[in-house]
């Protein structure tokens, strides 16, 4: 297995590293915070992050420093930082490891971010299922408070940075930043119309920055080692730094791999992940960036894992969840399984997504049950066309991706199932109704 210099997973891979404050301090923890409080201005911290080229690790890949700079500096009221720890994108499990194994790395990143944007309060919105992670974070916050890294008057500098854990209650959509804010305000987690953006009208209509766990965990390292160092890693200038890729599916060694951006799928899957779990079966499909990303085929194995390359090849790097499927996997089944997820998780605010996900799912289920009709494939594409780009948040675009991409690469599998339906269809032309 090739070795790359790790940034985020380095500490936790040391034998015996427990993630306690003591352990974290021993590996240089909270030095970035001390350095900043000794005399780097908030604007300079923002500049360092901007120059590092760090882009959001949650899915959209927006430049982090730029996001911070949208927060108005002269705002008279409070500002907020929200850490998006609502990790629910199928195929993604990196934030869980970062929080459970090295909570202080995240907390230091949050205090630094609070300092940079002028927020006094930070909330960690963690998905409700991560009870263990929430408990570990609560404990770490208590430790950091005792040591003076969090709370009033951080390290005697006069900086106030209160950090709280806020657990969700099971809704994928709350990972969308405005839905997260709604949920944090105690409402149904439905996305808000943008603009205005959270940077000016976020939590309680105050300026707010929402950043992913992995994004925030990078901040202390960037501050300590400098923007240039970070910008030299990966695939500069647009995709800098490392990325934790979550490898799952039919590979030998699934798991989290932190690698510099810009390595290829082939390197990730075959060198890091040990290749396919069964040597006799070839790779058939890849979901390159979580359930919302369009499928890739074996022909895309040499695509580089950076934002631009994956986008150019017709998908997105998304949340970093790479799922591998071997020969013999039905892609109609795969699309249907994903659609079950999207149907279940659509928040119901926008009609195209709410109704469309139900139509897509029912049509896919019909085809899978050998009751499809020849016109179904065009109808699927027509439905997708009427969902994509017509919803408030990106969920609508996400739910059509698996359908459109499987139809693009494996249309014959759909047609095969429909042909089976023709043969087995009852003479009178029964139209089955599927209900959930």
């Amino acid at each position, binding site marked *: 297995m090739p070795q790359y210099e790790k940034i985020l997973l380095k500490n936790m891979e040391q034998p015996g590293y427990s*993630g306690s404050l003591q352990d974290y301090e021993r590996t240089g923890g909270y030095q970035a915070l001390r350095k900043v409080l000794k005399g780097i201005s908030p604007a300079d911290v923002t500049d360092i992050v901007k120059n590092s080229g760090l882009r959001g690790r949650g899915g959209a890949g927006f430049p982090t420093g730029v996001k911070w700079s949208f927060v108005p500096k002269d705002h008279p009221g409070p500002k907020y930082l929200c850490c998006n720890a609502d990790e*629910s994108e199928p195929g993604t499990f990196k934030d869980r490891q970062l929080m459970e194994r090295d909570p202080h790395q995240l907390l230091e990143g949050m205090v630094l971010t609070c300092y940079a944007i002028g927020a006094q309060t930070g909330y960690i919105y963690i998905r409700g299922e991560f009870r*263990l992670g929430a408990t570990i974070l609560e404990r770490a916050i208590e430790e950091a408070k005792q040591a003076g890294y969090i709370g009033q008057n951080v390290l005697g500098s006069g900086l106030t940075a209160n950090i709280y854990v806020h*657990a969700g209650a099971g809704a994928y959509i709350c990972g969308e930043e405005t839905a997260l804010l709604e949920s944090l305000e*105690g409402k149904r987690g439905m996305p808000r119309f943008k603009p205005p953006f959270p940077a000016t009208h976020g939590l309680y209509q105050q300026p707010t920055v929402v950043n992913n766990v992995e994004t925030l965990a990078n901040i202390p390292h960037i501050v300590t080692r400098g923007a240039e160092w970070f910008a030299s890693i990966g695939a500069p200038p647009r995709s800098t730094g490392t990325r934790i890729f979550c490898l799952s599916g039919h590979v030998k*060694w699934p798991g989290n791999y932190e690698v510099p951006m810009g390595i290829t799928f082939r390197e990730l899957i075959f060198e890091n992940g040990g290749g396919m779990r069964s040597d006799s079966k070839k790779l058939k499909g890849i979901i390159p960036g979580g359930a919302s990303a369009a499928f890739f085929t074996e022909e895309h194995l040499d695509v580089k894992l950076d934002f631009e390359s994956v986008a150019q090849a017709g998908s997105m790097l998304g949340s970093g969840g790479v*799922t591998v499927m071997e020969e013999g996997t039905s892609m109609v089944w795969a699309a249907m399984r994903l659609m079950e997820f999207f149907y*279940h998780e659509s928040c119901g605010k926008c009609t195209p997504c709410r109704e469309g996900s139900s139509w897509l799912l029912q049509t896919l289920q019909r085809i899978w049950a050998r009751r499809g009709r020849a016109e179904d494939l065009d109808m699927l594409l027509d439905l997708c066309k009427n969902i994509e780009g017509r919803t408030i948040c990106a969920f609508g675009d996400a739910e059509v991706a698996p359908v459109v991409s499987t139809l693009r690469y494996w249309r014959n599998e759909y047609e095969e199932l429909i042909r089976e339906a023709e043969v087995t269809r009852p003479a009178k032309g029964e139209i089955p109704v599927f209900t959930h």
Partner: protein
Amino acid sequence: MLLEKHQELITELLSRYPVKRSALLPLLNLAQREEGYVSEAAMKEIAKILDLTPPQVYETATFYTMLNLKPIGKFHIQICKSIMCGLVGSDDLIQWLQNRLGIRVGQTTGDRLFTLSAVECLGSCGTAPMMQINDDYYEQLTAEKVGRVLEDLRREGTSPLKSGPFMFPQPAGSR
């Protein structure tokens, strides 16, 4: 009675937010931990604590899948059925669990010990198939392992097979 029992915790929770309503999810979660589900009485009480109307609490509670609005069994088995787990055999496990417990997905056993749900991704695809029972994750499941977990829970109320802090793959050398 939430307020009576957890006065201190609730005061602390409320102090975290400038707007009372923000404490709604934490309080609903608390109510569920107390009784296993969120009862109507609890929702009314939470409404009072937060100066909301009961429908405001109810409309929010119905949005979130983790909140059970009806009583469930002592152990809530939530097995992941999303595609990543599906690729490595979660469907067989669900079938196995249904047979073993003698119930279908969505039902509770007669002794009110187990409720079985098939849920969407719980964020441990690298260690699939997996399930969550109450607060704990159980990963890299096989039918044999699930059977042991069920036995442990029946006997002890807890199982040593649950996951600790997540680390996967294990650091080099231990594989």
